[in-house]
């Protein structure tokens, strides 16, 4: 009998350890993120490149790539041939690998950005910005569009005039691309709210959890994300963000910054670490949830993400010299985890998030999910890095086993040694 009791107790303990402990929640709400993008305030009245209060000269223009190459030591004839669509070394998908080798001594500028001078990516000069007050100091940062002071978003200050980020909500090219990929099944992020009070709209003890889901978003006939589908949480050893908050009239605001959380980045970094993380979300009349999530993110992985995404492609499509992004992030970094005098390895940042109602379940799909940690349930294979579809080495695509290296001088001119038709003037 005693043995049986001990067995039951052991089984109960095992079950309790295997699954997250049930919280004493009075209410829970589930959501699926249908769109999220860096909070980049657009100060122009139309378009995506026009001058505005944010960027008085408009979006940073496309570099003159011929000049960039000549400045890097190539002859004009070589520069024209490297940019010529008829050049067989210029891939229609991966761009011109030789663009990497324009540092001192033909160094690869993607992995050695300081081997070339800072070209000076023009940042935001306006005062209005979106995001969160991360340092509890209303005298630093931007003023929000609704007049709140102290909005810390140095990421926006550094990169807000870069074409990939500039534009009204949901219309910048970077946000369109990443969210379309998410909506087409590349990943899913879900949100769980839970509270201990009686009224979700006004509750002093709210917990908010952001998780990956193993289930893909479902589109409706109009191409939007359909609400009220069911999603199972996908446990991940790293990507999980849990916040403590309170709700007042439906606005859910952090009660304290979270030391460290991790989310799925909607950009090239893939993994987003946020230090001193906070949120400011609002329950919407249609049942949705929208607002900001932010903190201090490490800036070097942002740069490395663009390098991994193929330097020549990013440069051509987003109108930027990639090393200038490195310099801009380093210049505007505003947080050191080791204290005020430490190296500024992090930069203030916020996401603009929109989520729709959904049924969020535990990983085993046996019950509604709570806003608690599921990391203990993650298997190693659940957290495997996403494979790259291309063999990217040092920022360029090369055949497997090959090195990322500069072309020999003899290959830098067309076979006839005269610039073929199709070259830019």
């Amino acid at each position, binding site marked *: 009998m005693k043995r049986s009791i001990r067995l039951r107790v052991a089984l109960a303990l095992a079950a309790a350890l295997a699954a997250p402990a049930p919280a004493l929640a009075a209410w829970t709400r589930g959501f699926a993120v249908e769109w999220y993008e860096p909070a980049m305030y657009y100060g122009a009245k139309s378009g995506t490149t026009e001058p505005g209060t944010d960027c008085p000269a408009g979006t940073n223009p496309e570099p003159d790539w011929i000049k960039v190459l000549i400045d890097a030591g190539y002859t004009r004839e070589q520069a024209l041939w490297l940019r010529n669509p008829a050049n067989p070394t210029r891939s229609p998908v991966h761009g011109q690998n030789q663009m990497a080798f324009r540092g001192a001594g033909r160094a690869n500028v993607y992995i050695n950005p300081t081997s070339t001078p800072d070209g000076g990516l023009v940042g935001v000069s306006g005062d209005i910005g979106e995001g969160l007050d991360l340092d509890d100091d209303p005298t630093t940062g931007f003023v929000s569009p609704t007049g709140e002071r102290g909005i810390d978003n140095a990421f926006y200050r550094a990169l807000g005039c870069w074409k990939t980020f500039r534009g009204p909500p949901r219309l910048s090219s970077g946000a*369109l691309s990443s969210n379309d990929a998410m909506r087409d099944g590349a990943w899913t992020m879900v949100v769980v709210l839970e509270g201990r009070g009686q009224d979700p709209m006004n509750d002093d003890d709210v917990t908010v959890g952001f998780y990956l889901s193993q289930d893909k978003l479902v589109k409706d006939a109009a191409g939007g994300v359909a609400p009220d589908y069911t999603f199972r949480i996908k446990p991940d050893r790293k990507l999980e963000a849990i916040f403590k908050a309170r709700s007042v009239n439906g606005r859910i605001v952090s009660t304290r910054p979270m030391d460290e959380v991790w989310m799925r980045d909607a950009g090239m970094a893939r993994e987003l670490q946020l230090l001193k993380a906070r949120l400011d979300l609002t329950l919407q009349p249609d049942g949705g949830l929208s607002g900001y999530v932010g903190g201090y993110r490490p800036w070097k992985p942002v740069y490395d993400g663009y390098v991994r995404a193929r330097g020549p492609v990013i440069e051509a499509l987003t109108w930027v010299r990639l090393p200038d992004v490195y310099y801009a992030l380093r210049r505007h970094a505003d947080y050191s985890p080791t204290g005020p005098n430490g190296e500024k390895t992090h930069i203030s940042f916020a996401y603009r998030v929109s989520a729709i109602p959904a049924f969020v379940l535990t990983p085993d799909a046996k019950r509604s999910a709570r806003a608690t940690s599921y990391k203990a349930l993650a298997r190693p294979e659940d957290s495997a890095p996403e494979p790259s579809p291309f063999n990217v080495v040092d920022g360029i695509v090369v055949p497997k086993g090959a090195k990322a290296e500069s072309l020999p001088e003899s290959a830098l001119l067309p076979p006839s040694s005269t610039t073929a038709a199709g070259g830019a003037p």
Partner: protein
Amino acid sequence: MSQRFNRRSLLRGALGGCAVTLGLPALDLFLDGHGQAWADGKRLPVRFGTYFWGLGLTDTPAGGSRWVPTTVGPDYEITPELEPLRPVKDKVSVLSGFRVIGDGRPNLVHWTGHAAILSGVAPAAINRMDGPSFDTRVADAIGGGVRFKVLDASASGKVVSYSTRTGSAFATPDTTPVELYTRLFGPGFQDPNRPDWTPDPSIMLQQSVLSAVTDQRQALLADVGRADRVKLDQYFTSVRELEQQLALGLERPEPCESCAAPPEPEAPKRGASIDVVNSNTRTMAKLLAMALACNQAKVFNFVHTPGASETYIPGESKIYHQITHDEPTDARLGYQIETSRLAGLVMEGLGAFLTELDAIKEGDGTLLDRTLVMAFSDTGYAKIHSIENIPIFLAGGAGGRHRTGQHIAGKGEAVTRVSLTAQQLVGVSVGEFGVGGMRTSRPITELMA
């Protein structure tokens, strides 16, 4: 009609010690009174072709479009990017609003769109399809009895074809007009209207050589693993097609009223600039059209430009693919100006292609009237690699089965409905197409006469 002979009758005899067969010409005896069908009630052949171009047509993030007509049904308006189709507008149906439903599979950019249209399922991996492309099913159904079961051609100089029986091995296209000409009208071509036809003993010899390795082929198939078996199956399919082709070379071809072997094209122009690609498209269209008219083939696949199209305007340094991504939307006009300009130029290729098919008189109509061309792309709004609102056109009368000249708005339905419709329009006995969320048994009946 004669009780002893019909259009399928063969005269059998011997030549040089070899048995040969001799087909009979299309005698009036075998035709109905209208010149539209054989007297036994069977229609003159219906042909089918796919036409692919890369990077879709121009949409805008705000929901506008440079190509979707504002009205549905017949007599749609010609929108700016459809202007090159104006000469054949009444023979072209426009299909907008159809999309790929991935069933959780991510969008593999510049691949998922057309792979899903052709195979009926969003692919799991790039450069592979999860099933055969449906053109092979069409070829099996209607492509027999002619010299080439399928013809594959690519106009941009790239060895690109999306036609596959296995999902992993793809057809090898002819990439220049000269290559295509040589295949069609070089050695092995028999003028169906030539009066002094005799079978070529060298063809009989080639056929015997192939037959001799049949046993070894089967033995090899039994020895290899699954992956190699798939590759070999695709390879031996082409061998079997070659055997059938050789066998046909020993039959006297039926005369074809519209067939006139064209002159050999000039030396090939190479390069991906849009003027070269469109010039090659027009020349190759003439060749393909004559191949259909000469009853050399009934099914073809044509690639104008690949998915991530590298075509460009001569003198410019940017390629089309790059422009679709990097060009901002014009704030005043609401669309990408240069992208739309290139889309219009790319559509000139399709317009020229269809015009060439329509220029050949056949019976009481044109070759295009007896053909169905399904033209489609890999993306909708190329800037973001969208797989919604992928532009698709069904061109040609399919022998009277296609109710042409309509705009069909798909409203988010699966692209497989169009693929199923195309197959049924050319007479393939198929009741459903696609897998999972794209499985459909509903053709677009508005397009069916």
